């Protein structure tokens, strides 16, 4: 029988993490994602799967715990919300520079500064354009349902380990807090030391006689070697861009106009598409699931046939820049957003579509 439960997106992350065979979670409380650590602490997975859960003294400490755990080949994760993610960025850059796999969850809230605890998508730039220092990329998954919150734990870890790169689940307060039915994934075994030595031969597990020392570092003072390292990262990023793009299309085939939206915005846009079609507007929705790698090719292809695109985001216009780059002038691309924790209604989206694209 399927294991169907009703729960919040944040709780789904916690249960999925335990079931995935995660070795360690390190976090610091912040709204709207505190249920992740609260659920883990209540479940006490250290007594069942052996998963370590630790409340750190700060987000800075938490991400560096993740760095340490990942260095030893373990499946480790952290979660936070916008202000806390800002603090983690130094650590994320180190993790990317040392080519370590890990999972980071950002349940976004409105900013800048302490901002608001209400939902927002204003950390798009921070996540997909860098955020931390240096030329690195973060594999970014944008869930739009509680089910995807659960599913993307495994997907995020799998991609992180496949490419030795940090992965992020970029959710927002709506997805974190809303309750839906969810089918939890099956239990997986945690890796043994022997598994780690075999599958992650770079991991620090203690130097046995049969190998050289392992050193996890992002430091290289010789610019020629550092350039080589960067070229290696870039080659990996190109490969990810080629193979890991995920994008969902709703009623796009016959669409004259397209909405482009991710996460909770896409959820609201689905309703807008329905309402627009009732009015006779042939509207569709493109939903990037991976924000990096960005679904450039799909958007480019639709750009050639659509009369216009509206990038609908809970921010002042961030993803729209990537949509415009992909469309490359083939059609008109506009942005509609609400800011500071305010969420748009489907009607507002349709009104914006009419105002920005349909008006003669």
């Amino acid at each position, binding site marked *: 029988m399927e294991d169907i439960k009703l729960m919040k997106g944040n709780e789904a992350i916690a249960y999925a993490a335990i079931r995935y065979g995660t*070795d*360690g979670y*390190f976090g610091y409380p912040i709204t709207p994602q505190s249920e992740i650590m609260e659920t883990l602490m209540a479940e006490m997975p250290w007594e069942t799967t052996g998963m*370590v859960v*630790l409340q*750190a*003294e*700060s987000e*800075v*400490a*938490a991400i*560096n*715990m*993740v*760095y*340490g*755990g990942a*260095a*030893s080949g*373990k499946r*480790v994760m952290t979660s936070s919300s916008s202000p806390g993610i800002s603090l983690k960025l*130094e*650590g994320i850059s*180190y993790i990317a520079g*040392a080519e370590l796999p890990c999972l980071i969850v950002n349940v976004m809230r409105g900013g800048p500064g302490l901002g608001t605890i209400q939902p927002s998508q204003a950390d798009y730039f921070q996540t997909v354009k860098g955020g931390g220092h240096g030329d690195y990329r973060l594999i970014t998954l944008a869930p739009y349902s509680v089910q995807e919150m659960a599913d993307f734990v495994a997907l995020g870890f799998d991609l992180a380990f496949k490419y030795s790169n940090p992965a992020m689940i970029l959710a927002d307060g709506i997805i974190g807090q809303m309750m839906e039915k969810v089918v939890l994934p099956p239990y997986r075994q945690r890796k043994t*030391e022997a598994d780690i030595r075999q599958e992650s031969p770079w991991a*620090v*597990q*203690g*130097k*046995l*006689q049969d190998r050289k*020392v*392992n*050193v*996890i*570092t*992002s*430091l290289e003072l010789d610019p020629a070697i550092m350039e080589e390292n960067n070229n290696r990262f870039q080659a990996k990023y190109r490969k990810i861009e080629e193979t890991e793009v995920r994008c969902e299309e709703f009623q796009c085939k016959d669409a004259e106009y397209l909405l482009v939206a991710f996460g909770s915005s896409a959820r609201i846009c689905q309703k807008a598409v329905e309402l627009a079609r009732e009015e006779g507007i042939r509207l569709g929705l493109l939903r990037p699931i991976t924000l990096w790698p960005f679904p450039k090719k799909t958007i480019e292809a639709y750009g050639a046939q659509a009369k216009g695109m509206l990038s609908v985001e809970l921010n002042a216009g961030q993803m729209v820049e990537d949509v415009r780059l992909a469309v490359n002038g083939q059609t008109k691309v506009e942005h509609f957003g609400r800011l500071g924790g305010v969420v748009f209604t489907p009607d507002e989206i349709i009104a914006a579509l009419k105002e920005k694209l349909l008006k003669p």
Partner: protein
Amino acid sequence: MELTEIIKPENQVYGKPRLMNDNPMHYCPGCSHGVIHKLIAEVIDDMGMEEQTIGVSPVGCAVFAYNYIDIDWVEAAHGRAPAVATALKRLNREKMIFTYQGDGDLAAIGTAETIHAVNRGENIVIVFVNNAIYGMTGGQMAPTTLVGMPSSTCPYGRDVALNGYPLKIANLLAQLEGACMVTRQSVQTAAAVRKAKKTLRKAFENSMAGKGTSVVEFVSTCSSGWKMTPDQSNKWMEAHMFPFYPLGDLKNTE
């Protein structure tokens, strides 16, 4: 007697530790880091823990510690070594984990990570090299720079009105329940080196016995940063550092 007759294994009374490799060290002449590295390498080898030990190197002069001691290493961000070590130990309970940190790393940018790792009683060893200056970045003021002591960012000497007082972080850490051992050692004489080695071994044994955190501070010199010869540095350290940072155990739980 010929030289070849003298140089025989059975006559050898001292050698380079097995775990120290032949990479040329980047440390300046007279620097304490080299001796402290040697002690760590010897203790790990003496304990037979080479295959179980993971070191965490800092940002500071010892950032390249991983180039010299042949064990697995993680290079941490500036100040974050205790957090990195926390996860390494919690997720790999049977391993022996230590951090190696300078005073800027441990007592300025990483103060929070240090205090909280010790307060949680993480079963790790923290090796703390206090040379009262930022060596790597060229001799700027450290949290441990003595009052009146010059550095490139307090060229006329540390002024309390401007910079506050030097931080006796070991005294602070000794107050924490999670610490089982907090001690100050030095390596400027053969006797001090022998004593320091014993202490270091005890610290590593504590970590494997699950007793909590052991902090071994080495009151050290930085000839380049202090702008003195190695010999002058040692004398200056004895005359000025030792009175403010007295050697000995601040805490040593049996």
